[in-house]
C-alpha cells in the first residue's frame, strides 16, 4: 500500500506551470521522503498542493489514503519562517491544533507540557514568539505540528538558518516522533546531509515531469544517530550526490512515472561503503 500517490499532477503559480504531469507513488515503509531539486523546480509548489494550500491545475494527490482537496489537520505543515501566531504564548501556539479538534483544555495542556519538555522549551511556555530566538521559534513551530500526531507531516525547509546544535536536536526529535507515532513526513530540503540522515528516500525534482526517486538507506531511522559520529554520513552524502548527478542518464529512475518498488531503482547504501 502506498502512503503517497501522485497521479498526473500539474501545478504552478501565477499561470506558470512548474510541475507537469507528475506521477509517482511512495510505499508505506518509506517513512520520511526528502524532496530536493534546484530552485524553481516546484518543491514548494508540490508541498503547497500536498498541504491543500494550492489547487492543482490537473491531477490529484492522495496522502495516507485521503485525497487532498483542502488544508487539513491530518497534514500539518511546518514552515521555513515558522509562522507562529505572535499573539499566542508558546504553549498556546503548540496547543492550537488540538484546540481546533475540540480537545479539552486539560488534555491539551498535558500534551503541550510533554512536548515542551522534549523540545527543551519548558522554561518559555508562557513567553510570546517575539521574546524567543529564531531556533526556539522553529522548535515551537515543529512542536505545534507534532502535537497533532497526524498521519503526515509536511516540512518546508524547517531547519534552514538554524545553528548546528539546534538543527541536530530538531532532526533527532522529528525522527523520534516519526518512529514513535508511525507518521509519515515530506521534508523539502537543500541539505544533502539532512536528506541522507533523515529520509528513507529522496525525490529529486528536475522540473516539469522529470524526477528521480532515490532510496537512501535501509538502516532504520533511529539507528542513524550513530552516523553523526563517524564517516558514514560523509560517505552517504557523497553517494547521494553522485546518484543525483548521474541519475537522469541511467534510465533506472523515473521520468514522469516512478516508484520505489520499481525494478532497477537505484539504492545508495552508506553502510556498504
Amino acid at each position, binding site marked *: 500500500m502506498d502512503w503517497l500517490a501522485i497521479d498526473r499532477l500539474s501545478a504552478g503559480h501565477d499561470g506558470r506551470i512548474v510541475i507537469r504531469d507528475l506521477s509517482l507513488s511512495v510505499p508505506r515503509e518509506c517513512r520520511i521522503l526528502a524532496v530536493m531539486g534546484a530552485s524553481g523546480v516546484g518543491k514548494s509548489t508540490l508541498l503547497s498542493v500536498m498541504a491543500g*494550500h494550492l489547487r492543482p491545475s490537473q491531477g490529484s494527490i492522495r496522502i495516507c489514503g485521503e485525497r487532498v482537496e483542502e488544508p487539513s489537520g491530518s497534514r500539518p505543515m511546518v514552515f521555513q519562517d515558522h509562522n507562529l501566531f505572535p499573539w499566542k504564548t508558546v504553549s498556546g501556539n503548540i496547543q492550537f491544533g488540538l484546540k*481546533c479538534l475540540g480537545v479539552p483544555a486539560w488534555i491539551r495542556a498535558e500534551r503541550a507540557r510533554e512536548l515542551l519538555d522534549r523540545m527543551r522549551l519548558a522554561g518559555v511556555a508562557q513567553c510570546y514568539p517575539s521574546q524567543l530566538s529564531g531556533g526556539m521559534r522553529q522548535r515551537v513551530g515543529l512542536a505545534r505540528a507534532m502535537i497533532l500526531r497526524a498521519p503526515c507531516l509536511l516540512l518546508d525547509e524547517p531547519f534552514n538558518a538554524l545553528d548546528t546544535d539546534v538543527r541536530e536536536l530538531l532532526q533527532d526529535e522529528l525522527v523520534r516522533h516519526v518512529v514513535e507515532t508511525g507518521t509519515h513526513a515530506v521534508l523539502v530540503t537543500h541539505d544533502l546531509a539532512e536528506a541522507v540522515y533523515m529520509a528513507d528516500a529522496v525525490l529529486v525534482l528536475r522540473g516539469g515531469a522529470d524526477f528521480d526517486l532515490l532510496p537512501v538507506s535501509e538502516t532504520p531511522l533511529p539507528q542513524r544517530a550513530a552516523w553523526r559520529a563517524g564517516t558514514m554520513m560523509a560517505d552517504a552524502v557523497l553517494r547521494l550526490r553522485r546518484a543525483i548527478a548521474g541519475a537522469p542518464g541511467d534510465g533506472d529512475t523515473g521520468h514522469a512515472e516512478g516508484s520505489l518498488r520499481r525494478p532497477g531503482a537505484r539504492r545508495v547504501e552508506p553502510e556498504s561503503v
Partner: protein
Amino acid sequence: MHHEVLLPIAGCLLAAALWGVCASVFDMVLLPPPSAVAMAMVEQAFHGGLGEDAWASSGRVLAGVCFAFSLTSVLVLAAALWPPFERIVSGPIELTRPVPPIAWTPLAIMALGVGPGAAVAIVTVGAFFPLWLSVARGLREVRKVHILAARSLGAGHARLLADVILPSILPYALHGLRLSTGFGWFSVVAAEMMGAPSGLGRGIQMSSLNLDVTNLYAYILTTGIAGFACDRALFAVERSVSHWRGGKA
C-alpha cells in the same frame, strides 16, 4: 519611561508659564491669567455646571463611540467572512468620509430633536470613520501565512475568525478606538454648540454669548483634559492587550 512622562508635564508647565507671562504683559480681555482660569474651573466644578456638563459630554462620547464600535464590528465581521464586502462598503464610506460631522447636525436635529440624541448621532458619525479605516487596514494586513498555518492545523472558519483574524486586527481596532474617541470629543463639542440642553459645548457657547472669557477658557481646558484622560486610558488598554507585540503598542 521617565522622559515619556516628565517631558510632556514640563511642556505643559512651560506653556502655562508662557501664558501667564503673556497675560501679565499684554493684559488683554481675551487672555485671562491661568490662575484666574484655574480658579474659575474650581468654582464651576463645585458651584457651577462644569461637572455636570463634563459628565453629560463624556456620556455622549461614550455612547457615540459605542455605537460606532458596534457598527464597525458588524461590518468587519461581514468583511472577515466575505472579503469582497470590505471593497463594496468602502465606496459609500469613502464618499461620506470627507463630510465633516457637523454638517450632519441639521439632519440629526430634524430627526432626533434638540437634545442628547442628536449629539450622540453626530459623535457616532465622527467616531465611525477613523475606527473603520483603522480596522479595515488591520483586516487587509492579516497575514496570509497565519491563515495558511491555522488551516493546515485544522482550523475551520469559526476558529480562524476567533483565533487568527480577530487577534490580528485587535491592535488596529484599539488604535482606531483611540482615534475615534478623539474625533468623538471634536464632534460632541460642535454638536452641543449647535443645540443641546447641557454639555461642555453648550457651556462654551453660553460663556461666549455672556462674554465670560475666563469661563470660556475653563470649559475649553476641561474639554482638553477630559479628551486627554480618555486617550491615556485607552492607550493603557491598548498597551496591555497588545503586550505580545513586544512593547509596540
